């Protein structure tokens, strides 16, 4: 599965399970947050990625929530 910021690129290249990320230079982080909050944000994204991997999909699917 693909965690990426620019979802249209991921769709173009053919990823089937896509989780939108935060920003190009820090897809799984946000330097403006305190360290603990930033890690919690990263954890939510990775957990979403794991849920995407556990979810059956028919075609390209963007996991927004």
């Amino acid at each position, binding site marked *: 599965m693909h965690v990426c910021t620019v979802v249209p690129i991921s769709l*173009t*290249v053919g990823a089937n399970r896509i989780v939108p990320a935060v920003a190009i230079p820090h897809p799984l982080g946000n330097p403006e947050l305190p360290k603990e909050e930033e890690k919690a944000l990263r954890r939510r994204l990775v957990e979403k990625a794991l849920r995407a991997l556990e979810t059956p999909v028919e075609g390209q699917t963007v996991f927004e929530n």
Partner: protein
Amino acid sequence: MAQGKLRVVHYLNQFFGQIGGEEKANTPPEARAGAVGPGMGLKAALGADAEIVGTVICGDTYFAEHLAEATRTVLELIKQFQPDVVIAGPAFNAGRYGTACGAVCQAVVKELKVPAVTAMFPENPGVDIYKKDVYILPTADSAAGMREALPKLAAFALKLARGEAIGTPEEEGYIPRGIRKNFFAEKSGAARAVDMLVAKLQGKPFTTELPMPIFDRVPPNPPVKDMAHATIALVTSGGIVPKGNPDHIESSSASKFGKYSLKGLDDLTPETHQTAHGGYDPTYANADPDRVLPLDVMRDLEREGRIGKLFDYHYATVGNGTSVANASRYGAAIAKELKEAGVDAVILTST
């Protein structure tokens, strides 16, 4: 042969050269006078102005296994016939044959300075390798397309032999070679772009000046059933590598990917890792590489039993101006290794 006829040499594999099937694929190069096999149809299509003076035949496996030597020998055999043009194939969807046809044509053009053309199915691996250097006409995927292919090959070869100018792929029907030619357009780029946009909005046809590469599609994998016992790997195109970038992965147009151990690591820090990527501001990734490759969180989830295991290695390349062909190759190589290592699923992160 009559004076003034254009001299054509034809290249064939062992099958179309009527030597034999797969059991004869190890046949080394040999030359015959005149036309052989599909050369007969080609001869008819060439008409009175040209003559197939010789045919060079080589087994597909022999050619593939002795690429340099076979090319050299084939070239010498072709040269003896003093051709005005060389035709190879058609190879249809036969991979080794298509690759051999491409290699022969490329060598003929480069070494003998004689024009050459081949024909094959657009998905033949020979196309990707040689389309830049060689005129390749598209054919059907099997020899059922022979009747259709030969007249086109003959017409194209006659043009080449006569030294006539070859137009664009659209005009001439060959597979685009990716060659850019400068010319003065009547309208500026801005005006052409607006014209295209207007046509697009009106649902009218338009021709792009910058075709996008074609990406393949794969059916989705089934879901991971038992995540608590699954091995998950991290892969990134964001260039996260050990500090110092030991494999010297390029900051753009990466020529390779790296495989790096995560054993004993719980967290990526500026002391252990960095990004090699030259296409985004590296400040945030260098300050905390977990922002691109989430090792810290994966370790937590591993300890908590949410996943069975984090795979001991991560793979990284730089996705910055990297060609689709290279990126696909790295992807396939990485996927193969991960499958062999028993990895159940991958999280690929991109910047």
